[in-house]
């Protein structure tokens, strides 16, 4: 499936490190040093304990499908999704390089970067082939 090309994210001073790292293929998640919890989307102040002592940490890039919806009338068809990261929080994204009719909530996915119209590396996910024993 050829994917829809995402629009540019329009980074801010608060989020520039994320997009710089994404360009290098590194997936950063914000974690709070005070309460140790990871959150999404990234912000300066921890949404749980409100501490400003938050740090960018490199995430594994693995996750599971929390939910998804196939936009059947869009051209090209695309898959909107929430993916729960192995680090804990759930993020909005697209599922790509996949058969939209073979997706399932709970299935394993892995990060893959796709370019936006202006060349930003957008964090998306594609299904991990099941290991058959």
């Amino acid at each position, binding site marked *: 499936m050829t994917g829809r090309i995402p629009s540019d994210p*329009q980074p801010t001073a*608060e989020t520039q490190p994320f997009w710089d790292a994404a360009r290098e293929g590194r997936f950063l998640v914000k974690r709070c040093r005070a309460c140790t919890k990871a959150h999404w989307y990234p912000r300066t102040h921890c949404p749980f304990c409100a501490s400003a002592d938050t740090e960018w940490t490199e995430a594994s890039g693995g996750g599971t499908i929390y939910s998804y*919806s*196939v936009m059947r009338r869009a051209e090209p068809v695309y898959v909107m999704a929430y993916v729960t990261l192995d680090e804990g929080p759930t993020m909005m994204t697209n599922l790509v390089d996949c058969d939209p009719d073979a997706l399932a*909530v709970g299935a394993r996915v892995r990060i893959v970067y796709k370019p936006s119209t202006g060349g930003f590396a957008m964090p*998306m996910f594609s299904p991990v082939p099941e290991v058959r024993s």
Partner: protein
Amino acid sequence: MAYIAGAYEHPTRDAGDKTLAQLQIESALGALADAGLSKSDVDGFFCGPDAPGTGPLSIADYMNLDLRHVDTTNTSGSSYVLHVAHAAQAIAAGKCNVALITLAGRPRADGRRKGAIVRNDSPAQPDYQWEQPFGMQILNMYGMTAMRHRALYGTTSEQLAWIRVAASEHAKHNELAMIRKPVTVEEVVQSPLVADPLRRLDCCITSDGGGAVIVTRPEIAKSLAMGRFRPCVRVKGSGERPQHQQGGYFEITESGAVVSGRTAFAEARVRPADIKYVSLYDSFTITVLIQLEDLGFCAKGQGGRFVMDGNLISGIGKLPFNTDGGGLCNNHPGARGGMTKIIEAVRQVRGEAHPAVQVPNCDLALVNAIGGQLGVRHASGTLILERE
């Protein structure tokens, strides 16, 4: 406690010949006439961003209102439900005596007949860069909500279809309804997929139109009702709840109605089993199902079973809903469904609904609206209305 003394649904569904300001004043005058009041009685004005201009200022100017209280709370389609609660609070605090709440919209006349509501998202929103590039739309947020409900609880397309069927069975009696033809479960599940698992007939209509309600003090409401030989509609309880992504740890199948409903029921000192009629914002079939669960009309996950076999159809089921045909079939002015939900609940409590759908002895009704979007950010507003 305050009362809803007037309610009016603008009859237009396609307002090519009218401006937004005209729809606002026609709706306002309709509700005032219904109450037996005049424009000069209004001293509080509540509106959403559908009112053109800065907050309430342009429309207050256009109508030449003489005001001492305003409120422009904006939670999208649920705004008007929150306005009723806020008006009741303002009246109790002595800030106004007669509150006018209006809604008007003309997306069809403006050429957005396909229902693609223009969004006002801005890159200054902290969520913008994490959502908009991925093609986030109202449709796919509700689609993901329905998909997860299906995965967690086994909710089927046929069960969701029963909600549309019930709305259409009511709309067939409403000569103003945009879509009056009844549909079957088969027709709904055979309509084309738009955002899995939602199909075309799981989605609401987009219409032009408007509406208004008047909230006032008990003594004014009682004297007006006595003159018109009809019951009073008391705002017995209310609740509101913004709900969001909670730092990335959320459950999209649970709405703000859990908290707004609990708050309203506690204030009204009644239980879900006491409610005779519900007006529920039906942006999509799944929206109705989740509100029913979260308001406590059935257990979480049981909404699919609850809505089956006509359980929401007046005269057949245990809990009649949206007896005007709702946003699925009747009217959805400006894609802001809270106002029309209040209006039909007022009709039911007064006994003034269409005879074919009037709920017998409808002494207690509930209104709930979800504004914004399930699946990402929304605000739920609940009202419990009592006949007096």
